[in-house]
Every structure is written in structure tokens, then in C-alpha cells.
């Protein structure tokens, strides 16, 4: 029986248990009895849960352990005596035999795997039967045990609700688990990397060329300063030079000047800029903007203007960031008390003077917080730089020259043809850890700035 069918059968049993228990509980309701602790459905859910949970838990554990059990059974057969000792060949023969037995492949590279395939199939069938029997037994036992407890004096609702609360708690713990997973996997792989390359060389070295790594001194070509500079230059300088003026002025115009109808239409249009997938921006940057920027660079007399310039990637990233800046600025401008604005206007200041001298200074912490969030967004952005920026790390402040970023290097390092734990792939995790720490710090600072400022006016 396939795994899916088995799961479906278990669910079917649970459904039957639900129906039967509910019907039985419905008969408890007699005219003489006024109060019940539980409704018939609660009895139904109690039985269904008791039938489902043990069987599904067993199947989950089984699906992780049974491949190893099957392999052990195959190795115990006489045919397996000819297997080579532990190593790559042994593993490849075994996986080939497994594929043959499951009918996923038809040709085999090793003769031995053809001979092992029947043993595999037999062991697989035997263990599948065991799994089926145990799962059905557990479902019947759990459901049956629960059914004996379907009595009027049994508090089925309390039991079911306790399980529901556990489920809710478990769901919210997934967020913590994910955070722990991210931190742990980044730290673990980075620690392995820093055993090969000293952390100082990685953070402060100025030469980055992972294509040629000297095996005796890998740190010499894995200095990440050019990447940090490129990331800062593209994400925090060029992108912000585009996003801040456009975002801020749009927010000011839409909140202070625009007609309500204009605001209602233009705000979603601007927000659509944030909804366009980044791969589309990347394609746009690489195909349309980058050649134009190169032409511009050549026209103003920069001989080495690159077709993978920092300016093209940064400018398109800035366009993508406009809605983030504008909606944060929008919020903090709206939070400035109307009395401040009215006071300024009453003193005879024009509207633009009021905005520049009263509203913006009052809204500044919120705007700055929004800009910090936008920066964190920009430096974590991947696809635009992967498609439009160059892979060559250079320390340059020339926007027409090519620069690379942390995210671009992570993608380049991990999509190459290297094995999983070489210095190259581990370096990607170290870069990821740096990126994670920096974006986290930016977010924490930005949120605390915004929060403190909100408290000041509330």
C-alpha cells in the first residue's frame, strides 16, 4: 500500500470514529438531564484525534527510519557480501539498486545493483506491510480506547480544547524554530568557514577572488571588504539617492497637496512598484537600463563605463524602494499633530514653508526610521544585482564602474560546481551571516526610532 493511500485510510478511520462517536453521544441528550459538559461533536473530535495522532506520528517517524532499516535488511542478504567496503561506490550501488527496485530507473551502471534490486524490493514490501499493520493497529487501538470513554460524565470538550491549545502553541513556536534554524545553520557553517579562514582576514581583507583560491592561504583571496563596500554603494548610496527624493516628495505631495481622488488612485499605483517581482526589475535593469547607463557614461567621457555598472543596478533598486520610503514617510507625516501645522499656517507661512520647517522636522525620526528599513531592504535585495551587477569585486566609488554585492556573491558561490563544504560554499554562509546581522541591526534600530517618536506625540 502506498504511503498516501495509508494516510488516507487512517483519515477514513478517524472520520468513521468521528461519526460513530457523535451519533452515540447524541443519544445521551435526554429530557431529564439539563447540563452537559460537552457537545456530541466534541466526543467525535476526541475519538478522531485519538485515532489519528498516534498513527500519524508513527508514520512520520517510520518514514524517516525505514529507508535505513530496509538498507540494513538488504546488506544482511548473501548477495550483499560482494559489496565494496564503505565508500562512495558502495553508496552509489545501493542507491542504484533502490531506484531499480522502486521502478524509477531501468538501466543500471553496476551489475551488483541489478542483483541487489530484488532483495531491495522484497525488504521494501516486507517493511511496508509492517508499517501498514502497525499504523492500522494504532488507529484502531486509539480510536477504540477513546470510544470506550464516550460516556455522559466524560469531559470530552476539556480534552479536545486542551489539544487545540497545544496545537496553537506549537504553531506559534514554528516562528521561533525558524529563527533558531536560520541562526544555527548560518552560525554552524560560518564557524566551519572561520576555521579555514580567520575571521579578521574575512572581515577586513580587501582582495576578493573566489575563482582562484590558494589552498595554502585561502584567506588571502576571501577578504570581503570590496563586497561590503559594493553593497553599501549600490544599496545605501545609489538606490537611496533615487528612492529618498522620489519617495519623500511623493509622500509630501500625496498627503499635503493632492486631491483626495488623486491620492486614492496614485497611492496604489505607487505601491504596485513594490509588487513587481524583483526578477522583472533585474531583467529590466540588465536589458534596458544598463546599456543606456553605459552610453551615458561613454558620452560624458568615462572610458571604462561598464555594461554591468553599479549605477544601473542601484537606480533600478531605488525605483523598487520608492514605495517603502513613501509609505513610511506618509505614516510619520500623518502622525504629526494637526495643531502644529495649523499654527504654522496661521502665522502666515506658506504651505511649503510649513512642510519644510515644521512638518518635516517633526516627522524626521519616522522618516529616518523608514529610510533605514528601506536600506535594509535594499542591501538584502538579490535578483536585481544578480542580473545587472558584475561579479568582479572592485573597490571603487565610480558609479559607472562595475561592482559586486554580498547577495550577488552568495548566489555565485552556491550555484557553481563546487562540492558542498569547500571554502567557497562555506564563504557564502559567512556572507549570509554578515548580511543577516546587518539587516537585523538596521531593523531593530529603525523600529526603536519609529517607536520612540510615536510615543512622543501620542
Amino acid at each position, binding site marked *: 500500500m502506498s504511503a498516501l493511500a495509508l494516510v488516507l485510510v487512517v483519515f477514513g478511520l478517524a472520520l468513521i470514529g468521528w461519526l460513530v462517536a457523535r451519533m452515540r453521544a447524541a443519544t445521551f441528550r435526554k429530557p431529564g438531564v439539563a447540563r452537559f459538559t460537552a457537545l456530541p461533536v466534541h466526543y467525535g473530535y476526541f475519538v478522531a484525534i485519538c485515532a489519528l495522532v498516534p498513527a500519524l506520528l508513527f508514520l512520520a517517524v517510520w518514514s524517516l527510519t525505514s529507508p535505513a532499516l530496509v538498507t540494513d535488511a538488504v546488506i544482511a542478504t548473501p548477495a550483499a557480501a560482494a559489496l565494496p567496503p564503505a565508500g562512495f561506490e558502495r553508496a552509489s550501488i545501493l542507491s542504484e539498486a533502490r531506484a531499480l527496485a522502486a521502478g524509477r530507473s531501468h538501466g543500471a551502471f553496476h551489475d551488483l545493483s541489478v542483483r541487489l534490486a530484488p532483495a531491495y524490493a522484497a525488504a521494501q514490501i516486507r517493511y511496508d506491510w509492517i508499517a501498514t499493520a502497525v499504523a492500522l493497529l494504532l488507529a484502531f487501538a486509539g480510536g477504540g480506547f477513546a470510544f470506550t470513554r464516550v460516556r455522559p460524565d466524560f469531559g470530552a470538550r476539556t480534552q479536545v480544547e486542551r489539544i487545540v491549545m497545544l496545537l496553537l502553541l506549537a*504553531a506559534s513556536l514554528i516562528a521561533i524554530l525558524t529563527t533558531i534554524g536560520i541562526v544555527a545553520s*548560518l552560525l554552524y557553517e560560518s564557524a566551519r568557514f572561520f576555521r579555514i579562514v580567520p575571521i579578521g582576514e574575512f572581515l577586513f581583507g580587501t582582495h576578493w577572488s573566489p575563482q582562484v583560491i590558494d589552498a595554502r592561504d585561502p584567506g588571502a583571496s576571501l577578504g570581503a571588504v570590496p563586497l561590503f563596500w559594493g553593497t553599501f554603494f549600490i544599496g545605501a548610496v545609489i538606490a537611496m539617492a533615487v528612492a529618498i527624493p522620489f519617495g519623500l516628495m511623493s509622500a509630501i505631495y500625496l498627503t499635503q497637496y493632492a486631491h483626495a481622488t488623486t491620492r486614492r488612485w496614485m497611492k496604489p499605483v505607487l505601491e504596485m512598484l513594490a509588487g513587481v*517581482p524583483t*526578477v522583472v526589475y533585474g531583467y529590466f535593469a540588465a536589458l534596458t537600463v544598463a546599456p543606456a547607463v553605459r552610453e551615458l557614461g561613454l558620452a560624458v567621457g568615462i572610458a571604462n563605463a561598464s555594461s554591468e555598472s553599479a549605477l544601473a543596478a542601484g537606480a533600478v533598486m531605488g525605483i523598487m524602494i*520608492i514605495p517603502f520610503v513613501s509609505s513610511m514617510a506618509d505614516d510619520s507625516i500623518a502622525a504629526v499633530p494637526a495643531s502644529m501645522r495649523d499654527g504654522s499656517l496661521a502665522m502666515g507661512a*506658506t504651505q511649503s514653508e510649513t512642510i519644510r520647517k515644521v512638518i518635516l522636522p517633526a516627522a524626521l525620526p519616522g522618516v529616518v526610521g523608514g529610510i533605514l528599513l528601506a536600506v535594509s531592504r535594499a542591501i538584502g535585495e*538579490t535578483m536585481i544585482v544578480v542580473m545587472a551587477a558584475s561579479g568582479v569585486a572592485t573597490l571603487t566609488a565610480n558609479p559607472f564602474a562595475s561592482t559586486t554585492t554580498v547577495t550577488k556573491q*552568495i548566489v555565485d558561490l552556491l*550555484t557553481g560546481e563546487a562540492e558542498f563544504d569547500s571554502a567557497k560554499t562555506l564563504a557564502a554562509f559567512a556572507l549570509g551571516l554578515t*548580511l543577516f546581522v546587518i539587516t537585523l541591526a538596521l531593523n531593530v534600530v529603525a523600529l526603536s526610532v519609529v517607536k520612540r517618536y510615536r510615543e512622543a506625540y501620542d
Partner: protein
Amino acid sequence: MTEPSRLPTDWKAAAVQRRTRRRYAAERRFRLLGLAAVWLSAGFLMFLLASMLWQGASGFRQTRVALPIDLAAARLAVTPAQLSGRGADLALAGAGLEGTVDAAATRAFGAQGADLLSDGAWLVVRDAIERNPALLQSRTTIDVPVDSAIDVAAKHDGTPAAEAIVARLTARGALSTGWNLGFLAAADSTDPTRVGIWGALKGSLLTMLVTIALAFPIGVLAALYLEEYAPRNRWTDVIEVSINNLAAVPSIIFGLLGLAVFLGTLHLPRSAPLVGGLTLALMTMPVIVIAGRNAIKAVPPSIRDAALAVGASPVQVVFDHVLPLALPGILTGTIIGMARALGETAPLLMIGMRAFIAAPPSRLVDPATVLPVQIFLWSDDIDRGFVEKTSAAIIVLLVFLLAMNGLAIYLRNRFETRW
């Protein structure tokens, strides 16, 4: 005490007038600047969309050439009985139809004739024969797709050689254009005239299926717990902080997590929609939790009080009253989160969904690619025929995103109650 006498302001004085004019001019400039920022930002969006439409529209069309072919003279070794069954494709391929088509092309267009046709040209002839077996006994002319270089030359500017061929064929009146239905039905290929987005689209659908099956229940349950039951203590704060931070973590970090945990530790299959869906679910869940909490917060306390007052238990209050009322808001947030996941590329590159996959996936563990990654792969291809295909795939992706966001807005307007 004598106060210094203050002269009334002379509003008509030249200096005052000049200053007022200057201030009003500054006001107008500032206002225009704001207007320009709004329109330029909107203009960027329009330019982006228009350039995709402009470049991509031709990707849905294909250039065809009228190929005179004498199937009666070719005497293919197939019986009519073979053509009615399911083995018709194999029978015609085995009978050497591909060679017959190439020979017909050589006869019609000269020695290089076979190079004019797309690699998939003979498949069009095959399908025509299967639809109408009588063709096997006749001389006929069938419109077949042309080679990519010629397709590019016919639609835009191609190489001089291809342009010359197009001019020659146009003079003979042999070229025509038609809808490229294969683009919506086929999977990836090395030949731009034969590529399609169905494979990537199906990969995207399977991935989204896993994502929503995990992220929606977990996100909603977590939101319910945090908003309705969680005691205010340090543990709850930790959960809240980690959810808010996860929503701001760059997507590529989730890719690294998927690579290290799902592929590195759990040894799940590479490039599979299952792993892609798991990774995207972790990314989408915080978005759903945050949207869900806002929707649950918007349900007025009077609803809860009323339910509690008639004897409902806390669990019944939440699942029978609060959740149904908050559901439209939760769904809106979920759809927006799913739209973001659908357009996501970087984390999926990390877990190996960038392989060349020529067959649409049919199971969750089959190697697959997704629409945004397909766009990325095609954009990297040096063959010029892929330019319009990339833009056409972008159009399809944007149509899906637009539909999802439209649905979210509809749900919000239609079902959201304001108290």
C-alpha cells in the same frame, strides 16, 4: 513707560511685494516638484510595464513558412490502424517522418532548406496527419514554424543572412504568423521556438500548493494564539520579536536555511517543489501571522463578550465567532503573501531549482523550476530568440500577480466588515 511705536507693515512696499512673490514662487516650485515625483514614479512603472508588453507580445506569436510536402510520394510505412491508436506518435516518428519533412524543405527552399525550419516543425506535420490521416495519400502544403534566427529576423532585426532569407520567403508569399500555442503548453527547451512556460507554471503551482498548505494553517493558528490566548510574558515577547524579524529577513537568507536544513541535513531531493514550497512557507508564514493578527484585532471585543456571556468556552468563542469574522482579512493578507512568494526567485536559486528541466513535474519530489526562475534562466541565454520569450513569460507572471492582487482587493471590499 513709553513703548517703541511700531509702524504698521506697508504691504504695498516694493521690498515686501518682491519677497511675497519670491515666497509664492518657491511654493509653486515645491508643489511642482512633488507632482513631478509622483508622476515620474508612476511613469517608471508604466515604462516598465510597457517595455515588457512591447518586447513580450511577439513571444506569443510565431512565424510560419508554408511547406509543400508530398506525403504520398514519401510512402511512409504506417498503416491507418496505427494512426488511430495511442501509439500514433511513435509510429510516425519510427516511419521517418522527420527525414521526410527535411527532404521536403530541401526540395522547396534549396540546399539549406532544412535549416530554415524549427526543430519542432515535423511535430506540426505529425499532428496534422493524426488529425487527418488522408493527408498521407496526398500532396499538401502545411504551415510549419521556422527556425529561431529567422523568426527573430521576421519579427525584429536579425542577422543579415536571416534577413535575406526572410526577404526571399516574403517575396514568395510563404511566410505567415500565428498564435504560438506551444508557448503555453510546452516546457523548457534549448530551441527558443519550442520553449513553453507550462513546465515552469506547473512547478510554480506545485510549489505554491505546498507553501499554502503549510503557511496558511500555521500562520492562522499562530496569529490566533498570539492575539487571543498568549499570556503576556517573556516567551510571548520572544515569539513576537522573532515573527517580526522573520518578516524583515532578506529572502536569500531563507534560501540558505533551506539549503542547509532541508537539503544538507534532511537530504530532501534537490530542485523539488516540496523543498521550494517548504522554504517559501517559512518566508510567507510571518506575513500571514502579521496580517492575521491585524484582522483578529479588528474584531470588536463585544463579539467575544457576547459569546462568553451565553456560555461558550474560550476555544468556542475563537473558532466559532472570532475566526469567521476575521477570515476575509486573513485571506486578503494570505493572498498578498502568496503573490509575493510566487514572484520570489532568490531562495529558490539556492535550493537548486535553476536546473534545465525539459519535462513538467508531476509529483512534489520531481525536479522542477518555477516561473520567476525560468525568467531568470531565459534572460541569461545568449540566443536572441529568448529575449521575447523572457518578456512573454514576465507578462504571464504579471498577469497572475495582478489577478491575485485583484482577488485580494475584491475580497477586502466585498467581505470586510467595518465596525
